Each structure stands twice: as C-alpha cells, then as structure tokens.
C-alpha cells in the first residue's frame, strides 16, 4: 500500500496543509488529539473534501482538485473502524457484520464471513442485538464489519482509545490475528506510542495540521523516552511460561526471565520501562533483583539529557535509560559488557 498525500484544508482557524507519502501495509498516523489526524482520515476516506491538492492510494487517484476527481467514499473502498464502534443500532450483530460484505462486488469478496467470525471469536454473539454487547465485543464486531467489506485499505481511527487498559490489550491480539490471517493493508491512527510499536512498521507523525515526517515506532519511542513518564517501554512477547515457587519463568532469547505477575501457558505481552533496568559494570555478587542479564551495549542514543542504552542479550534487545553522568562514570560505549538487573515485579503484564 502506498498513500501519497498533498492536500490543504481550512476549517475555521485550523489550517491543514499536508504533503508526504507513506508506503507499507502496516502504517500508522501518530499525533496528539487536535493535530489533524482525524481530519486527514476523513479526507483519505472521502468523508470530507479537501480544499485543494491530490490524494493517491497506490495508482488510484482518490482526489485531485486540478483534474477534478473526487471519488465517492463507496468507490474508494476504504473501511473505517471508529474509536467508538458505531454499530448500526437497528441491526443485529450478524447484519452489522454483513453490511459491507453485501455491498462488496462478488469478485472482490476475498474474506469470507465464516472465517472472520472464527478469527474474531464472534460465533456466540451472532444472534444478539448490538446493545447487549460489552465495549470490547462491540469493537470486535466493528472490526469484523470493516474487514468483511473487503476494503483495499482498512483505516483504524483510534480503535482502542475508548477501551480501558485491560480491554485494550485483549483486542490487540485480535487485530494481529486479523492481520496474520487476511493480510489486509491498514492505516492505524493513534496517539499512543505503545500501540504504534505493537501495530505498525512506519509512522507518519502529524502535528498542528502538518506532517512532521515519517518515522519508525521505535524511533518515536526513543525520542519520547525522556518526556514520557514511563520512559521507553520495552515490549516483550513471552510464551512457554512455567510457574515455580510463586514466580513465573519465561524463556527469552537464550536465557530466561523471572516475572512475578505472569500467566502459565498462553503467550502474554509485557511492558518493561527503561527506567526499571539498573546497569552494573561488574557482576554484583548478591542482589535482590531476580533477573541479572549479561549484555553487550549495541548502541547509545540521546533523548533530552538522558542516555538510552540499547542492550543485546541472548539475541534479544532491551533499552535501558541512564542519566548522562552515569554513562560517563561507567564509561559506557558501544561494545561494553554490562550486567542489567531487573526486578521480577518490574514487568507489567498487558494481556
């Protein structure tokens, strides 16, 4: 998927002028609320007309002011998942799911209803009214409805922002599973760096009606390390966890991690703040932290007076954060061998 943007739009005192292109099937638009993300999404999907400019999706011209082209939303085939599911209240779950599917030309019906119902685990909901669903269930139905429209591009406009933390991370596996099964190009819109890290490969950064540039989610997370109250969040996907003496042992790279709040069996996602990693120059003899990893410094980066230390251990990567004076005192440079201590309770299970 390649999206080329060159548009202008004035809305009252808000002036939007965006020019950029983003390529890749897992792209994101990142920006604070009020930055113009949603306006951009509306113009891409044809729900709002720019004042002037051009919009291309791959080779298709969606909008061009000088060629006088403005494809109607239904011809663009860009399905949207909204922040609040916006299911049709007068239809049941099944009719909601099939709304777009029925309007899709038979030749383009690549994704079948049975497949999506299974992937999103909607079987037991099919005969229910939509107002009897929980927030997470609604959002799953909305996702299914959009995917079943068999769109060229799936736009997810802050699909997780209305959900609370625990629900949010229950939906993410579904989003990933849909992506694995159906390989539908998507554009993920969010103001959360963590969601960007989990869902996208490259990100268009939007601020005050302008595109600041194309970045990767990792670069975004690194740049925001000092200003984010939680620092850089390392996201770890761990499976094969075994419980022993009240602690959870998870294989990780060539070693293992010891975690206090784990879950046996299934794959879980954990976050670890860069500020919860303590670095030692020499092997500390006795230490209360349950994890002590021998690592190599692969790379170092600056973020507003802080130093980010990219550590390699057993084939895996972690980012730790230290103040600049500590980096000097310990004379940490790329290639240095360090010991990283992490408390078992520092890992937060997301879902």
């Amino acid at each position: 998927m390649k999206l080329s943007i060159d548009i202008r739009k004035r809305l009252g005192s808000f002036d939007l002028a965006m020019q950029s292109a983003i390529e890749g099937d897992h792209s994101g638009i990142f920006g604070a609320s009020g930055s113009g993300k949603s306006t951009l999404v509306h113009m891409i999907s044809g729900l709002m007309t720019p004042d002037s400019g051009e919009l291309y999706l791959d080779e298709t011209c969606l909008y061009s002011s000088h060629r006088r082209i403005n494809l109607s939303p239904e011809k663009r085939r860009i399905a949207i998942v909204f922040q609040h599911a916006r299911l049709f209240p007068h239809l049941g779950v099944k009719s909601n799911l099939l709304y777009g599917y029925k309007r899709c030309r038979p030749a383009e019906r690549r994704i079948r209803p049975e497949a999506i119902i299974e992937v999103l685990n909607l079987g037991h909901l099919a005969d229910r009214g939509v107002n009897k669903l929980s927030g997470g269930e609604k959002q799953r139905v909305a996702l299914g409805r959009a995917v079943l429209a068999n769109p060229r591009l799936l736009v997810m406009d802050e699909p997780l922002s209305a959900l609370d933390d625990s629900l949010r991370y229950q939906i993410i596996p579904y989003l990933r599973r849909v992506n694995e099964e159906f390989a539908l190009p998507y554009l993920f819109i969010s103001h959360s760096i963590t969601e960007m890290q989990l869902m996208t490969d490259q990100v268009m950064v939007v601020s005050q009606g302008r595109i600041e540039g194309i970045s990767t989610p990792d670069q975004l997370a690194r740049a925001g390390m000092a200003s984010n109250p939680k620092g850089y969040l390392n996201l770890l996907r761990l499976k094969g966890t075994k419980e022993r003496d009240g602690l959870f042992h998870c294989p990780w790279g060539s070693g293992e991690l010891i975690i206090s709040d784990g879950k046996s069996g299934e794959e879980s996602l954990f976050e670890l703040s860069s500020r919860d990693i303590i670095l030692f120059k020499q092997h500390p003899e006795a230490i209360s932290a349950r994890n002590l990893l021998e690592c190599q410094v692969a790379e170092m980066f600056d973020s507003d007076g802080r130093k980010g230390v990219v550590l390699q251990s057993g084939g895996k990567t972690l980012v730790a954060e230290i103040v600049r004076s500590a980096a000097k005192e310990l004379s940490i440079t790329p290639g240095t061998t360090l010991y990283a201590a992490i408390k078992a309770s520092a890992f937060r299970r997301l879902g």
Partner: protein
Amino acid sequence: MNLSPEDITAIQLSLKIAITATMLSLPFGFATAWIMVFRHFRGKVLLEVLVNLPLTLPPVVIGYFLLLFFGRNGWGGAMLKAAGIDFIFTWKAAVVASATVGFPLLMRSIRLGMESIDRQLLQASRSLGATWYDTLFTVVLPLSFRGMIAGSSLMFARSLGEFGATIIVAGNIPGVTQTIPLAIYDYASSPTGTSMALSLCGVSVALSVIILLLHEVIGKRLETRREA
C-alpha cells in the same frame, strides 16, 4: 350515546381524510426533514419558514389561500380542470387542507428524530461501500422510524380536528365533506343538537385517547426492539 347515520358517515369521512392526508404527507415529510438535516444550500431558512408557516397562520387563512390557488381562476384549479378532476368542495380538498395544516407537525417530529442520528453511523455506512441513497434507506430511514411514528400520530390527530381550512375549501356538505368537527359545529348552532354534539365530542375524545395510546405502545415496542 346516540349517533345518527350522518354522524357515522362523518366519523368515517374524518378517518378517511386524516389517514389519506397523513399517508400522503409521510414521504414528503421524510424528504423535507432529510433536506433540512443533511443538506446545505442557500435559502434553507426560507424553506424552513415556508414549511413551518401553517403552524402559526390561522387555518382559515391557509384555507383561503388554497381556495385562491385551486379555485376556478387559480393555477392549481386550471391544471386540475385540464385533467378533468373535481376538487373544490370534495373530500380531496379536505385532504389537501389537512395535509397543509398538519405537515409542519409531521416534518418537525421526523426532523427531531433524524437530528439525533449519530453522523458517524452514516460515515460508517458510506465507508462500508453504501451509496448515499443506500445509506438513506438502510440507516437513516430505519433510525427515523420513531420520529415518523410520533409525527404521524400528531398529524393524524391534528387532521381529525381540522376545521378552519377545511370549511373554506371543502365546505360543510353532510355525507360529502362533513367531518366530525364540522358536524359538531352544525349541532352546536341548532337549539336541539346538544346531546348529538356531545356524542360526537365523546367520539373525538375516544379517538384522541386511542391515538395517544397507540403512539406510546409503538414507541415502547421500537425502543425494546432496539435494546434486544
């Protein structure tokens, strides 16, 4: 309760006129409400005033305008004459009088219902591949049902009570254009008609109560269906 055969005819005629006027107005009411809520164009305020004018004008004035328009020398009258249709002083004229007077009530109720529809539902529908008219019929129309029920019952009740405009364009001909209010008017002007007038008043009250009850029941049912 004593109702003469003429009274029974008046009741039947009232119902026939009110039902026809409401049914005829529904599609126009829906269309006008849709234009008011979802379209942007110049002169919207003018249309707004024009459509709502019958709400504030005395019905007699409306009746008089209709008489001028559909009369022998009016545009409408000439067209109807060319088509060979007898209009003034028939039940059809009473339908048009009722429709004109009741239309704003119908349109305002539908409009209120439409305004409460979440715009993102329409956007979702469009982004899922529906054309604008597809969205109109599969999202806007079903979600306007409650407004249409409310508007229809208001308009139906208003039509049953229509007097001023009707008496001017349709007259007060027993068996032809005499509706319940016109019959009551006749009884009230004769010294012996008190009990007959009261009987028809009773019928009016009963009809109004039935309409209000029906409105409540259907509204509740739509609500529970939506929650199910």
